[in-house]
């Protein structure tokens, strides 16, 4: 360590040494003069005694820097010269390392951003996510780890454990700053949010506990720094300006600090709104203070020296008391004993949340780790490949190395030279890799699911990433260089000098071992590629269960533009009529919830058939207009579709009806006719099953393509509304979009379109993760195959060259050409089968990592494994066949004469 420091302060050390030596000489000279010598003679003597200032300086410098380090620099220079003389070798090695390092660095960059990086706040390690484990018996609004707002207030009183507690919910609002309203990502937060996180304002003030009072009492917003910069051009007078949130005026009170982008890397808010303004921010939401509505995530900051485990146990008494109290509340009176027991069995779960809370992380971390493992395997493969190349080069350089040994170089010294080779290669590869990485990251980000909210992911190379790439290159260099360096240590000098150039058997067993490992790694990657490709093609072949061609969907949200519910319904109805009348429309319908978005409206149903029972799991629910199933092109297999009557209010002749899907009938009616049976929403004893099942629709995908689930559909009308349009069009999608836009412009020019896309796009988007896994794993697999084929070819060619004489003798003694080919192929077969034998248990072990990412195929799927093994074996044998053929073509005369 000291010595590395010395490198950095070399100049200072040198000037000190010069001063020290000058002092010595001056003193000596003056002493000598005093003893009677003339000055000239004295100076000469003094210098002579010291043995030359320059020499002393050299020697002292050696002590500072150690020979080791200085020699290593010379080694690097020597290696660089040697590599430049052999550009094709260098290019192959550097390129394979660059691919490996670049891919690994790119994946690491994403994992770092999505999974690992803590929030840029004070002591993020003390942040915890507080979650309800068990049945909350609550209405749900949102996804993942949801709690009710009153529980957050309760937790804020637990001062024994927490420095503070806050809650937050991501949402999208309709924001007008000056001109037209635009959909904008926002975060609803409690007044404690900023203070608990330790974020400070760049301008004005942030929310305080005073912004946490009565609902509707605090019409203020805080802007994110980026939004302020881009949208308001960093206006200094921003504080005090009014903005319209869903047509409600709110005052800007401050701007958050530049580095803070909210606590969700996948959904970066442009502004923050106090949770007490939730009724304004989420149209139709007015149950903020209800304990049976869960819609926020709650995070707390642990007190210093209070552990997570202690807090978890310490909070249980309070939590149990709250559960008890909840059951005594009136709205809990008519719950079945079973449900009550489930409710009371709930516990509170705390997890460390230094990275905040992110749904993106939840859904993406597994696929990202899978890919990271794959790139690590690829990198190891590249590493082995370079090791093999270096070994081959080592045998070519055999004479040179032997000569150096004979001239007195130590084995360690030669090993170091070889290590310098590989370290230099790795650094060149790493450098190129870092150049490739941002491009790869950008391509990866394009694969990720996106919604209106911007993600915070970037393709920048920062110091963390550089450090990572540096460490990986270092490790790669040492690993790739270890084999040749060890080999150099082991060789016997005498025997290698005695041998003729080029016949050294150096490192063959090592190269075989490396080749075997390469085959094993390759097989793992090829099998992974097979699994993911089969998953994707399985999902694509299955499809969503309806015809996606010539189908577009788009959405609006008039309530966010200030429409009352009744006005909004009238507007939607008018728009729908216009759309139907448009020449490009074949048929169209409206749904309450979008399809294939990964989410659904979930609730248990109570069924009254021959007996009364409750569904054992949530049913996926939606509300649709008549003709929705026809628009999708799905068939009604029993009963009828909704008609206009079903949409009427009950007192105007309407009736309560529901259509269920085949999966629902199969699970709850055992395939018997469900028509005429009744269902009710919810699971309580007081649920009245008064809604008649009037139809059965065939199964199609609602939440995601993967899923087969029980579904039930209610009519849009008196009870339910919706503003997601589905239109089957004639002609091109462009003309359909144009028609849609003109209809919307005529209806209300200020109304923003929340989204618009074809259903083909929607299916593609919902399969983004699967596509990313399939595309990347198959390119990794191909790359791996290529690398190991080249490697195998190299090793086998080497073997054949080595054994030319032996083969010549065999042929001369009467061996057939065929048996010669077999001789070589057998060698390759041993490596291939050994590699396969190593790979299969690894596949079995890694299977658990990928299992959740697969569809309709097991990680140990025999067909996939067999196919992959066949592909690998056949291509590998082809690669081995070329040298084998060359072996059989050996002319015995030449082979023997060449000796």
């Amino acid at each position, binding site marked *: 360590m000291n010595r590395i420091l010395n490198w950095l302060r070399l100049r200072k050390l040198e000037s000190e040494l010069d*001063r020290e030596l000058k*002092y*010595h000489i001056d003193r000596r000279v003056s002493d000598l003069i005093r003893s009677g010598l003339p000055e000239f003679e004295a100076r000469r003597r003094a210098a002579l*005694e010291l*043995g*030359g200032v320059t020499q002393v300086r050299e020697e*002292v410098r*050696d002590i500072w820097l150690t020979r080791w380090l200085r020699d290593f620099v010379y080694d690097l220079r020597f290696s660089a010269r040697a590599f430049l003389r052999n550009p094709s070798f260098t290019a192959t090695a550097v390129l394979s390392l660059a691919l490996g390092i670049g891919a690994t660095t790119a994946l690491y960059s994403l994992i770092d951003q999505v999974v690992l990086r803590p929030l840029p706040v004070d002591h993020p390690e003390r942040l915890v996510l507080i979650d309800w484990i068990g049945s909350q018996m609550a209405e749900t609004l949102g996804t993942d780890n949801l709690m009710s707002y009153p529980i957050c207030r309760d937790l804020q009183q637990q001062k024994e454990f927490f420095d503070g507690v806050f809650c937050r919910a991501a949402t999208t609002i309709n924001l007008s700053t000056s001109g037209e309203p635009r959909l904008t990502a926002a975060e609803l937060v409690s007044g404690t949010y900023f203070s608990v996180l330790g974020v400070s304002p760049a301008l004005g003030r942030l929310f305080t506990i005073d912004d946490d009072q009565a609902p509707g009492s605090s019409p203020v917003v805080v802007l994110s720094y980026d939004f302020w910069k881009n949208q308001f051009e960093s206006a200094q007078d921003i504080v005090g300006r009014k903005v319209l949130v869903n047509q409600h005026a709110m005052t800007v009170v401050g701007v958050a600090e530049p580095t803070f982008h909210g606590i969700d890397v996948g959904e970066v808010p442009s502004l923050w709104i106090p949770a007490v303004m939730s009724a304004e921010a989420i149209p139709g939401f007015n149950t903020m203070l209800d304990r049976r509505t869960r819609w926020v995530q709650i995070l707390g900051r642990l007190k210093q020296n209070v552990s997570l485990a202690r807090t978890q146990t310490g909070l249980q008494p309070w939590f149990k008391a709250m559960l008890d109290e909840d059951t005594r509340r009136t709205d809990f009176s008519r719950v079945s004993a079973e449900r009550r027991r489930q409710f009371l069995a709930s516990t509170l779960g705390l997890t460390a949340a230094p990275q905040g809370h992110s749904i993106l992380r939840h859904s993406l971390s597994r696929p990202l780790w899978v890919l990271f493992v794959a790139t690590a395997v690829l990198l190891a493969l590249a590493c082995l490949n370079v090791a093999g190349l270096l070994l081959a080069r080592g045998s070519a350089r055999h004479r040179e190395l032997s000569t150096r040994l004979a001239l007195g170089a130590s084995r360690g010294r030669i090993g170091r030279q070889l290590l310098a080779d590989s370290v230099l290669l790795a650094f060149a590869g790493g450098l190129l890799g870092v150049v490739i990485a941002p491009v790869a990251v950008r391509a990866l980000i394009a694969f990720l699911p996106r919604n209106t909210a911007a993600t915070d992911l970037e393709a920048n190379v920062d110091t963390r990433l550089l450090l990572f790439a540096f460490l990986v290159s270092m490790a790669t260099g040492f690993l790739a260089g270890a084999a040749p360096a060890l080999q150099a240590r082991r060789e016997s000098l005498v025997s290698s000098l005695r041998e003729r150039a080029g016949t050294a058997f150096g490192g063959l067993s090592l190269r075989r071992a490396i080749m075997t490992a390469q085959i094993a790694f390759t097989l793992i990657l090829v099998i992974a590629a097979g699994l993911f490709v089969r998953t994707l093609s399985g999902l694509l072949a299955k499809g969503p269960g309806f015809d996606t061609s010539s189908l577009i969907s788009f959405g609006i949200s008039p309530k966010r533009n200030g429409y009352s519910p009744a006005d909004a319904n009238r507007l939607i109805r008018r728009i729908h009529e216009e759309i139907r009348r448009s020449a490009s429309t074949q048929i169209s319908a409206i749904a309450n919830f979008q399809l294939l978005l990964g989410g659904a409206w979930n609730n248990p149903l109570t069924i009254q058939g021959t007996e009364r029972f409750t569904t054992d799991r949530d049913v996926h629910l939606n509300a649709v207009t008549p003709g929705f199933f026809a628009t999708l092109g799905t068939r009604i297999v029993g009963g009828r579709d909704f008609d206009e009557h079903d949409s009427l209010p009950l007192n105007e002749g309407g009736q309560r009806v529901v259509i269920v899907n085949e999966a629902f009938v199969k699970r709850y009616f055992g395939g018997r006719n469900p028509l005429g049976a009744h269902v009710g929403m919810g699971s309580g004893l007081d649920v009245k099953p008064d809604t008649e099942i009037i139809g059965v629709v065939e199964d199609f995908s609602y939440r995601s393509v993967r899923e087969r689930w029980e579904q039930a559909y209610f009519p849009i009308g008196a009870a339910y509304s919706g503003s997601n349009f589905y239109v089957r069009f004639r002609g091109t999608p462009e003309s359909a979009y144009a028609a849609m836009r003109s209809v919307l412009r005529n209806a209300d020019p200020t109304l923003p379109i929340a989204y618009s896309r074809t259903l083909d796009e929607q299916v593609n988007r919902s399969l983004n993760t699967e596509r990313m896994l399939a595309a990347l794993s198959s390119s990794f697999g191909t790359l791996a195959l290529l690398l190991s084929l080249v490697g195998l070819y190299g090793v086998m060619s080497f073997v054949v060259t080595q054994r030319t004489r032996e083969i010549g003798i065999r042929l001369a003694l009467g061996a057939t050409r065929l048996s010669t080919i077999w001789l070589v192929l057998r060698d390759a077969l041993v490596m291939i089968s050994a590699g396969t034998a190593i790979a299969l248990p690894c596949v079995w072990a890694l299977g658990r990592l990928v299992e959740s990412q697969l569809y309709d195929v097991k990680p140990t799927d025999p067909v996939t494994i067999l196919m992959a093994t066949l592909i690998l074996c056949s291509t590998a044998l082809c690669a081995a066949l070329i040298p084998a053929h060359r072996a059989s073509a050996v002319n015995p005369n030449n082979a023997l004469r060449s000796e």
Partner: protein
Amino acid sequence: MSSSRFPVPQGTLDMLILQILSLEPAHGYGIAQRLEQISKSVVQVNQGSLYPALHRLEQKGWLKTDWKQSETGREAKFYSLTRSGQNQLRVERHGWARLTGAVQLIFDEGSAQ
């Protein structure tokens, strides 16, 4: 230079430097002079190897250095022993005693015959 003076045996220079510095801190020139004085000009130190030795000992953490005013008034680099330097001196002294003892024994053996 008289031929009666013989060069310091290899490896003992470090020990001698440590010994001298255990008495009091000194600068390089001072050490050179003291080596000559103490050994009554019997031992000849090649001054060229003195400075590499000093820096080596410093690198090992046995010496620490200070720029201080010397007896002539000029600033000079003074070396002194660190705690681990003192330990090292003890170790080397012990080793030396054993070595010379052993050598003496061998000589005695030879003269007894």
